[in-house]
């Protein structure tokens, strides 16, 4: 029986030995999830802000759908991307299936709705507060987007971290579109699934602890940066 003890010991040994296979897996996990977060944020932040500012017929429906997509099951996202990128699918000629790029696409699909929906909500609240001021400056809606996003930046940092958390913790989608190929598309979460299926539970849990530590480290860094900036700006 694996105990919490030997899982901790395994995790510690993995980290202290700087196991080269582990380093590769960690690096790939970070590369994929950070790329996915960056791409998703690039689209979702302006999209969410625009949704907060514009009024159009069917806006309510769009918001509901976006909120619902926050709960998109990773396996469904993975299967969708798999069918799109498969050679027999519409984007098959690019040969992206079973590559890290496919994993980025799947994760973008998962976290874009999260970032967009939460941005919409934050910006809408902020806009309600600043509306008169912005109106008196004569700013068009389009020009208000960067201003509002900048003013909401501390809240949006948390939104982006939520997206990163979802991306790095997810396994169902990257397993399907990446294929868990050793040295090519094996990331932390798929490695954990593989070790679990081998019955190597201490190693699986050890890898889980390493992943958790990594995510904590990134969140800690974001917190420190945010706090420093906040204090400096008074």
């Amino acid at each position: 029986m694996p105990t919490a003890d030997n899982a901790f010991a395994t995790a510690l040994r993995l980290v202290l030995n700087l196991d080269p296979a582990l380093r590769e897996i960690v690096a790939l996990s970070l590369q994929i999830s950070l790329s996915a977060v960056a791409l998703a944020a690039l689209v979702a932040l302006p999209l969410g802000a625009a949704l907060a500012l514009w009024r159009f017929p069917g806006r309510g429906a769009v918001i509901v759908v976006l909120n619902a997509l926050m709960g998109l099951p990773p396996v469904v996202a993975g299967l969708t991307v798999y069918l799109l990128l498969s050679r027999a699918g519409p984007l098959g000629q690019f040969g992206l299936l079973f590559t890290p790029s496919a994993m980025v696409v799947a994760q973008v699909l998962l976290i874009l709705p999260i970032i967009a929906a939460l941005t919409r909500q934050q910006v809408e609240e902020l806009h309600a507060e600043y509306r008169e001021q912005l109106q008196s400056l004569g700013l068009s809606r389009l020009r208000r987007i960067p201003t509002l996003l900048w003013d909401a930046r501390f809240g949006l940092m948390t939104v982006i971290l939520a997206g990163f958390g979802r991306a790095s913790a997810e396994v169902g989608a990257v397993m399907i579109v990446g294929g868990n190929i050793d040295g090519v598309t094996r990331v932390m979460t798929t490695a954990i699934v593989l070790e679990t299926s081998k019955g190597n539970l201490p190693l699986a849990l050890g890898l889980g602890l390493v992943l958790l530590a990594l995510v904590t480290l990134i969140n800690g860094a974001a917190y420190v940066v945010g706090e420093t900036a906040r204090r400096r700006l008074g």
Partner: protein
Amino acid sequence: MPKAGLILAALGLMGLSLNATAQSVGHITLASTTSTENSGLFDAIIPAFTEATGIEVRVVAVGTGQAFEIARRGDADALLVHDTRGEEQFVADGWASERADVMVNDFVVVGPDDDPAGIREAADVTEAFARIAEAQASFASRGDDSGTHRAELRLWESAGVEPDGAWYRELGSGMGPTLNTAAAMDAYVMADRATWVAFDNRQNLALLFEGDEALFNQYGSLLLDPGRHPHLKHDLAERWHRWLLSEEGQRAIAGFEVKGQQLFFPNASR
């Protein structure tokens, strides 16, 4: 849609930088089964092939049913699975041009050490299965249309049992997860020997029945038909196929051991 174009371009760039690190002279994607991957066979034999040919082999380990589907969609260059009937059908349907025996291992029946159904005393595997059904002892089935699942269903059929009822649990999982679950609920389970020997979380499970010829598990390599998916790397895949059947490949398979035990027995007919 300039925005969509931009996103695609950005994705392409990111993909390039990501894939560049993993690029080699040439690689093929091999769709194969969890039993071969989980036992560590590929880690043992692929380096020898890569050294001899410079071709990297990327393994996607799934159930046999899913492996066929991946190949049908044109997403794998090569196929190594264990469902002879399914493989022959695959050739007959025109998806593959050639099928060859590569190696065998065997299935074993494991279960709780105190053996409530008494299958240790069974004369053959059909009797063992019949005893499990009669005792209504918990049985964990893969239930995932894998080669192992298909073989298990054939054994129930020859035992004249319709596996049904609360004692028969279809898990819909790979071999490893099924063993984990069986260990947790003290159930009988049919496993391939390779995964069983390499499996660490046995708890109360023990090997109870083995050795019947009906438990013979044949692996076959398939050469995909270039007419179906011209974009696949058929020349590289053919070298892999030929290497598996060659003396060198067969020797590599025979040399693979886990815990001092040979798990796969090469049987290519040359």
